[in-house]
């Protein structure tokens, strides 16, 4: 039943992505859409972890940053082809996440938050400090993304690349959610002990989803590094991690559509808030607090249940 709904949802999204450029008057709007797309890819992965498995991570920008820096360093310093660098980055991040996952995911609640936060901060300090390799606080350029002699040059092309990658990411996530793995994850979210009692190897599934979400972040980071003229450690710091988590929770946990809405909304918000200049931080903080206080379950589920109530 859910499977069909999800396929329809994916098709609708594909149509939206296809016609959206009609409403993007210039490169500035393309840029916002592309940034939203990158964030959405990370959030779709992170939502598997937070929304479905019920495990928080305050360090996913670390994985995003590692992917970005892997691409930048391998391409500019060692002349690797971008696609190979992207895969190598994903592999490194996947292995790192796998090694860290077992001890970390034993932790619960606030202790898990602390550990993931710690990992994210350590990664961003290393990126800031090892200047000979990473370029330090000034960052490093990854160069343009090229594959088989073709180079992505315009914002328009980037839009299609990011849109396509996002659709693939959602398709993969949907498959995972609908598989036995997804059922096991929902059981873990409901009650971990309960899931174990009925024979779910909870540790294995939590590790799996942690690795998948880290790899999603890494791939998005790699592409992002090629899209930007320069990647800086700020793209991997604590606040970027918070931004990702906020997007997932803002849109509505355990809903891929919710993550998308959250990513698009919170990517566009800072662009709107620049009007307020110095008051930007204050307003962003107030919006974060306000939405979470009045819609603790997130935007999409809250609006959804409002609609249902109207109809009923």
């Amino acid at each position, binding site marked *: 039943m859910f499977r069909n709904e999800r396929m329809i949802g994916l098709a609708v999204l594909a149509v939206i992505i296809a016609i959206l450029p009609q409403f993007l008057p210039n490169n500035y709007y393309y840029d916002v859409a592309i940034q939203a797309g990158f964030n959405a890819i990370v959030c779709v992965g992170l939502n598997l972890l937070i929304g479905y498995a019920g495990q928080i991570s305050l360090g996913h920008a670390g994985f995003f940053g590692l992917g970005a820096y892997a691409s930048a360093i391998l391409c500019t310093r060692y002349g690797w082809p971008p696609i190979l660098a992207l895969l190598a980055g994903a592999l490194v991040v996947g292995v790192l996440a796998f090694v860290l996952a077992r*001890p970390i995911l034993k932790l619960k609640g606030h202790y898990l938050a602390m550990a993931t936060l710690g990992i994210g901060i*350590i990664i961003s300090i290393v990126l800031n400090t090892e200047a000979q390799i990473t370029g330090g606080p000034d960052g490093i350029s990854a160069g343009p993304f090229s594959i088989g002699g073709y180079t992505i040059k315009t914002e328009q092309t980037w839009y299609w690349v990011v849109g396509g990658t996002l659709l693939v990411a959602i398709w993969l996530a949907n498959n995972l959610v609908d598989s036995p793995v997804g059922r096991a994850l929902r059981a873990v979210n409901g009650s971990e*002990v309960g899931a174990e009692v009925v024979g779910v190897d909870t540790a294995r599934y939590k590790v799996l989803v942690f690795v998948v979400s880290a790899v999603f972040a890494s791939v998005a980071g790699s592409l992002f590094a090629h899209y930007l003229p320069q990647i800086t450690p700020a793209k991997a710091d604590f606040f970027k991690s918070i931004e990702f988590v906020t997007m997932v929770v*803002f849109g509505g946990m355990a809903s891929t559509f919710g993550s998308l809405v959250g990513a698009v909304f919170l990517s566009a918000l800072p662009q709107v808030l620049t009007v307020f200049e110095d008051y930007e931080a204050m307003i*962003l903080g107030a919006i*974060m607090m306000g939405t979470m206080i009045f819609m*603790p379950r997130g935007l999409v589920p809250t609006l959804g249940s409002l609609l249902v109530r109207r109809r009923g």
Partner: protein
Amino acid sequence: MLASFLQFVFSGITVGSIYALCGLGFSIIFNASHVINFAQGEFIMIGGMATVSLVALGVPLPVAILLAILATMLVGFALEKFAVEPARKASVTTLIIITIGASIFLRGIAQELWDKNFHKLPPFSGDQPFLIAGASLMPQSLWVIGVTVVVIVGLGWFFNRTLEGKAMLATSFNTLAAQLVGVNTKKVLLMSFGLSAMLGAIGGIVITPITFTNYETGIMLGLKGFSAAVLGGLGNGMGAVVGGLIVGIAEAMAAGYFSSAYKDAVAFIIILFVLFFMPSGLFGKSGTERV
């Protein structure tokens, strides 16, 4: 050799005291509400910045300190009343985002109210260092350590000897049971935010003559205070103090003997190692999940 070692110990204990006060703030709020208040670092910043401005306006230092502490406590009460209380039933993740939103909001205000520059206070009693075995100890460090000890003793008295303190302890053990015996747990929640804000402000004020302060100082101090609290076992007051001192001393040693660039990473490396082997911190209760 000994002199430099001693020097690192002194600076470690000084900054560790601030982490301890901050960690205590996390623990008190966690005990009363199971909320992790990510705006704890902002209390430190507000305490320091408010004192600096009041002194600049010509208010005598002791009065400025008192007013700054009161102002920070008001912020703490407001945070509880308008941001945490309405979302009491929300999930852990949602509450984390609310308090982080609050910290961004408070930083935004601080940046407008004051500016982005660093500010300093004069040391409370001169800057003539004491020489101990070749290492120099600044009088302000003694102020930091002394005030921290007084605060910890005061908290011990408050929690064990006063009715309000006992009510807070009772709430942390079992909220429902505390309500049943007539404890006003809503008031306890409000008090816990006021008390934590007070601890943060005190820490921020005594450290400002040493480290200076600006609108962003609260970020790292807050995160390290959180790691101190987790290191000692969340909700364990003495654990937070010990955790704070461990983090402070380890950080000073790392900066002195290894690399000052990685100073800020030390707290998080320690916390990861400890959590890998002791998932509830050094002195935390190992909980079991109820089905």
